[in-house]
């Protein structure tokens, strides 16, 4: 029983990340009609926002202390981050809280990236076939990840959670669960609710939802959807970016994490039902949990390697028996 609970908990944070990425994918696809293969790279960029902020805060000042010498006889170098020498303990605190701080930084940065991407590239592909959209965003994804590789190197860069939530909590006697994963779960739920509330309760959101149902009609009403879609793209970018920022203490980011998550998130979208926001979210969590179950030793000893392919298998089964996905609208992709 405990084992099951633990696996469910373990799956939730990964599921949260899938859900957040898939949400943006399906939102952009449903409104702009664009398949964005660079959406995983955006998640990765978000993660590297956190890495950058952390590195910036940790920039060190080197002072030579002539009174002490190293084993080599040279004066001892004392390294202190600038921020600590300026702000003292507050500086240390800032470094420790670099991940949450990165969020404040990542929102405008990701929004900017999203807007630039949409205005500078995506908008020219609205009228081109999906194949072209896939190809151009695929190229962009490669470029983004290679740039990150040039700057940050190929190795994963671990980030730590703030000390307040760095430890683990014992839920039952056998279940020890890191605080940060709980934080991530609540964070993703909050973000998801935020997006849903935004779409449900604002006029803007209403237009967007109407656009997802029937773009042409909304266009005929004289509403400038193009501009709204730019904002939608920006929102999707921010959501994926923040998902990346917060994920860094769970998975040390590296340059190719984007593609790994993108493929799985696409599968999540297909399983949930293309164009269904609720489907994307529930399928995200569902597949996250499934994956975590599949990686249990008990399961793996019976079906070796099942954790590697479980998500794909589920997708295949779903496509065969229920092509429109779990929550897709009837008639969509059924012919």
């Amino acid at each position, binding site marked *: 029983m405990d084992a099951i609970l633990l696996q469910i908990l373990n799956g939730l944070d990964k599921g949260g990340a899938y859900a957040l990425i898939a949400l943006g994918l399906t939102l952009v696809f449903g409104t702009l009609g664009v398949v964005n293969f660079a959406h995983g790279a955006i998640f990765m960029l978000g993660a590297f926002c956190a890495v950058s902020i952390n590195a910036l805060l940790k920039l060190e000042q080197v002072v030579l202390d002539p009174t002490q010498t190293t084993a080599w006889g040279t004066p001892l170098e004392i390294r202190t981050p600038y921020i600590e020498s300026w702000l003292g303990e507050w500086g240390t605190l800032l470094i420790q809280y670099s991940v949450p701080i990165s969020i404040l930084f990542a929102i405008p940065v990701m929004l900017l990236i999203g807007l630039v991407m949409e205005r500078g590239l995506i908008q020219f592909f609205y009228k081109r076939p999906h194949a072209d959209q896939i190809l151009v965003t695929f190229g*962009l994804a490669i470029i983004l990840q290679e740039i990150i590789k040039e700057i940050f190197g190929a190795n994963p860069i671990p980030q730590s959670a703030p000390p307040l939530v760095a430890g683990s909590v014992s839920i039952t006697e056998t279940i020890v669960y890191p605080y940060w994963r709980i934080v991530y779960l609540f964070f993703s739920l909050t973000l998801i609710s935020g997006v849903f509330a935004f779409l449900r309760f604002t006029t803007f959101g209403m237009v967007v939802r109407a656009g997802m149902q029937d773009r042409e009609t909304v266009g005929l009403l004289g509403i400038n959807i193009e501009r709204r879609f730019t904002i939608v793209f920006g929102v999707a970018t921010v959501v994926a970016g923040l998902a990346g920022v917060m994920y860094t203490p769970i998975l040390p980011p590296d340059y190719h994490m984007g593609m790994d998550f993108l493929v799985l998130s696409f599968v999540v979208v297909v399983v949930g039902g293309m164009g269904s926001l609720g489907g994307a979210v529930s399928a995200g969590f569902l597949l996250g949990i499934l994956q975590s179950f599949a990686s249990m030793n008990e399961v793996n000893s019976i079906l070796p390697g099942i954790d590697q392919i479980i998500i794909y298998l589920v997708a295949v089964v779903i496509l065969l028996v229920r092509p429109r996905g779990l929550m897709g609208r009837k008639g969509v992709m059924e012919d």
Partner: protein
Amino acid sequence: MFGISKINDIMLLVAFAAIILAGPIILEPIGASYPDLLQKFAIFGIFAIGFNILFGLTGYLSFGHAAFLGVGSYAAVWSFKLLSMNAIPAIAIAVVLSGLFALAIGYVSLRRAGIYFSILTLAFAQMSYNLAYSVLTPITNGETGLRVLRTDPRYLDVMFGADVGAAQPTTNFFGIEMTGWPGFYFCGIVLIAAFAFSIVIFRSPFGMTLRAIKSNQNRMGYTGFNSRPYLMSAFIISGMYAGLAGSLLAVTDPLAGAERMQWTASGEVVLMTILGGAGTLLGPVLGAGIIKYFENIFSAFNESVLNSLFEFMPEDVRHVVVEVAGLFVGDGWHLTLGVLFMIVVIFLPGGLMEGAMRVLRIKHSPKVTNIGKSPQRDIVGEGAIEENLDDRVRTAPARSKPTG
């Protein structure tokens, strides 16, 4: 009436064969005349020709073709290990196995069209890649990669009385060692055969049917065609081409690793095809050659080479230029690939073949505005490219089509 006759095609094939066989001489001036590189041209040419049979003719964009390449390589190396160092059984087994693999993946993926198909193929390729690294390690030898050992059984070779285990085995074609120039000529001849078969497919009623599916799959149904088996055949043929290419990789260098199945490798063959011109006969081969040539050059560059290259510049400027150029060469080749990708899609959707055609017959060659519906003819053909811009309004994808 059709612009392209049998004679045209035979001439095209003869010219193609002549260029391939004379490749070592023709490519001498650009410094590409050595067997290792020319083998790569030929092998990736085959890979791209096969990819083009699927994408160029049907418009179905597969993002998982590297999986078939990988399967072909593994199958070939196993054939070297278990049967014989002869290339023929290795190739035969690789082609058959990758065909079966394509059948399995195609059965599921082809239930969907458009982006769903792309996503599914990408997912399957990732899954294969993951499996090759994990559970299938007994077959793939995981990260180390699968290689030929002196101690392998090689039952066929033993049966024919070869002295197995005496020396480090090398691949051969009935005694001719598949390294150096013989290796290239072997690959070159297979390439010519592969090209000939693609001409046959392009010109056959089957090929025309595939084009019709690309043009209007809906209509095909009301015209009495069941598109699924057509697409399935194209997918399997295309997968077998990839398996063939994979087996040749193993023939020229008998080892196979999972990185061959990675999504970047799938992306590379897409780029080769669209760079040359999807839907054209020669384009994919041209694209493969160009990509592999520049990969070779760019990967070899390093800072000192760049410095000597930009020697004519003043010190400070040179420093900056070298720094920037350094991003794109050496390990940065993938960045160049990504940039090239975007440039082709944005500025040259018809690929180089279409570009060349526009230069050659300036008046009658309208611009191709997207890849999804790229030109279907060749420079040797009628040059029929769509005259009008594709002005269809964006159709909302998450909605059933309005009926009318």
